[in-house]
């Protein structure tokens, strides 16, 4: 059955007619053309489709589009600031080798964002737990974890400047 839903997508309000059996992933990729969110398994096992719903990381392949009604959705396309400047996590993944083939990257970055928003000083164990639902075959996870730690440790000075000046760049 078709119905109309309203939600905030990457900071912009959106109103769209959807079918009730569509997943959020399908809506994003096939109907809204936001292909940054990837489908790796369709079963909630790989995390490539991770998006944030009201700040929480979820598998959009196991989330009905209809349930986004009234919610705030963030996909990888909405992470950079409006002027195009990258989110500290994006910069850090780029600069610390957190990206190889890149297929898991959008999901990884969003899981990391959900973590850091909730817990700005996570331990390595916290980070590993936060990424446990995001599979990666290329990196062995090491440089992904380091990319997140770099943000946490304020190792990258220009990232800190961005954070101080703009706060959360949602």
């Amino acid at each position, binding site marked *: 059955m078709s119905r109309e839903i309203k939600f905030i997508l990457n900071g912009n309000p959106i109103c769209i007619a959807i079918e009730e059996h569509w997943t959020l992933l399908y809506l994003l990729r096939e109907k809204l053309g936001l292909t940054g*969110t990837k489908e790796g398994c369709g079963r909630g096992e790989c995390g490539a489709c991770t998006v944030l719903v009201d700040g929480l990381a979820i598998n959009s392949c196991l989330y009905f589009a209809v349930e986004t009604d009234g919610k705030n959705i963030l996909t990888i396309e909405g992470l950079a600031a409006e002027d195009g400047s990258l989110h500290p996590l994006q910069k850090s993944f780029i*600069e610390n080798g957190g*990206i190889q083939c890149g297929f898991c990257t959008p999901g990884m970055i969003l899981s990391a964002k959900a973590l850091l928003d909730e817990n700005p000083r996570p331990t390595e164990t916290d980070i590993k737990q936060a990424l446990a639902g995001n599979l990666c075959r290329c990196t062995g996870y*090491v440089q992904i974890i380091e990319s997140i730690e770099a943000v946490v440790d304020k190792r990258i000075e220009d990232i800190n400047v961005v954070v101080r000046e703009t706060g959360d760049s949602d």
Partner: protein
Amino acid sequence: MEEFTVIGKRISKVDAVDKATGRALYIQDFKLPGMLYGRILYSKYPHARIIKVDTEKAKALPGVVTILTGEDIPPIRLGVYKDNPPLKSGKVRSCRDEVAAVAALDPEIAKEAIDLIEVTYEALPAIFDPEEALKPEAPLVHEDHKTNVLKMPWNLHYGDVEAARLEAAFNVQERFTTTWVTHCCMGTSGAIADVDNSNNLTVYTNTQIPSLAQKDFQETLKALGVKDRRVRVIKPSIGGGFGSKLDTYAYEHLAILLAWHARRPVKILFEREEEFLATSPRQPTVTYISMGCDREGKLLYRDMSMVLDNGAYTSWGATTPSVMMMPITSLYRVPNVRYTAKCVYTNNTYCQAMRGYGNPQATFAIESAIDMLAEAADIDRVEFRRINSNRPGDVTPQGLRITSCGLPECIDAVSKNLDFGQPREKGIGTGLASLIHVGGGARIYKSDGCGTMIKMDDYGKVDVFTGASDMGQGADTVIAQIVAEELGVKVEDIHVFHQDTDICPWDVGAHASRTTFVAGNSALGAARKIRLRLLAMASKATGVSEDKLVLKDRAFFAEGSPILPLPKLLRSSHFTPKGQMMMADNFYDPENENMGRDFRGNMSATYSFGTHGVRVKVDEATGKVEILDYIAAHDVGRAINPMLLDGQVHGGVLMGVGYALTEQVILENGRNMNPDFRDYKLLTAMDAIHSKPIVIETVDEKGPFGAKGIGEPGCVPTAPAIANAIYDAVGVRIRDLPITPEKVLAAIKKKKGAVSCGIDVFTQKEQPCE
């Protein structure tokens, strides 16, 4: 030491911004106007006659455009052995055999249509064990082939193994087995084929071999009666390769055939389950090894034979013995070597290349046996490896010419960093294993070449058109660094094109860890040609002699000061009468050799070495193995980009750990029982190991700025290093991968005197205890 501005720096991947922002486009993300969606019907049986394929109901389904069965397509044979038609007729030989293909308006209709195709089969006796398949009474997988043994004999004997065996003071003789593991690329396989009105073909596909794929697709066009048309291969961003994309597959050819019939673009995209059951895993092996040394621990001989489960068809998996020969003949100094391998047809899934290309299987047997031999000879296992280490200048029995060789340094680095001398704790142990791999290309084909074209614009921006393929490893970044260094510009001035055969030159493919070495040298050669011209022009323009000019930071320097900006010189070359255009091309084919009939030949221009050391903790009650420390030392010649290099090592190591401990494709009578990430135990971030990569730079004289290949080595010695550590920890030797907790526990129990190791759930037979 030479000073570089770009080489040796931790430079971000050139495609990373697109990937971090979700802009990078993968095959999943491509849609063409009017595109149809294709889907494949696979066999219900591992071995059966196809009596009838009834497509009537499926054809009647609204939205179905084209249905093809094995009877509808021209004779096309895929693979190195030409035994694999993209749609089967008459007989199916494995559960992944393609029986029919559908193109429809959307993926759901295609799926429904597949369900409506009715196939009548007559089941045939099937064979799943490669050693059983050797027996004369075994059912034949391909009747017209007359035997299940592939006619690809792999036999070598250098020196005199039998004489050496008599001479040896210590000997070991063992059997090792490995099973299927699969690439698990996060982006599944997919292709879009589009045939235009003049029958020119464009294929968007995930491939590591654009130029060879182009040729394969050309063959399929030819089979359709089309000659002399263009085939263009476009390679989107690839969600992981690891060898899985070294061949062309039925689905790509089916996309072409469907597009040809429908006269519309057709996309076939695998779901995850299909990725597990219809792509080709690493080759399983049964290995018999014997090895002996003299009283001082010097290796005297190595004698190995293998049976490889080829599966029902033949892809590159069947040629992995050609690479296994390298560690077998040349890992450590061993004067007398014998090796024989048989690839055997079974009704299992057919196998392919996967990172390491046979080397992990061979090294698992060799390095496990090395530890056992060292113990038999009562020589410290580190010392034993030092005694036998390869050295620069060695020529191995197979004729491999070892030039740069940092193996002794790798062994020392692991020994120092892992601290083998730490006091022992119960259940904790250490192990090590080394590797040799091709590091300067590998002459598998007649050519091992790669082309590059470079063009520079008015402003010092550089377009590099390379034959190399990036699938995430950073080939484009490394090439950009090499060109930037040579042309005195910045990496951000360089744009590397590698995605399109209409634009990019020829290359044999991203395999054998060859890209940095071969494509790097190719790019370096092209850049050098431009550099020489620029220096001549600059000298003319400034009056400073060429040898006094330095090109760096986008300018020419004389005596340390910039005297001419590079863009200015470039513009003058365009805006001067009889001006010139800054373009150059270069085809680089390394000075390596094809193997001869006796399998001798220096297949690579140089070789990479490495040693891994690991400390494990074994839970003796559950058999679970935990990795405490991991050191991976590699001789890489020179680290062009230490960050990407570390990434290759970390990723390779965890893939190796999965191979050692958790990963296996479980086939029950030829059927994949775990086609998902729940039951295929790909390791998660919580299982990640903080491995410590150590880089040994031997600066190879043939490598671009001294670099050697490092794409594959990370996963080569991992399994034996872990197996050796488990032995050190709890005294049990596991000879069968993966080393799952149940195997470790069974071995511990047997050692302690327990009799039963239980019934194997799948074979329903008594499980052999370790």
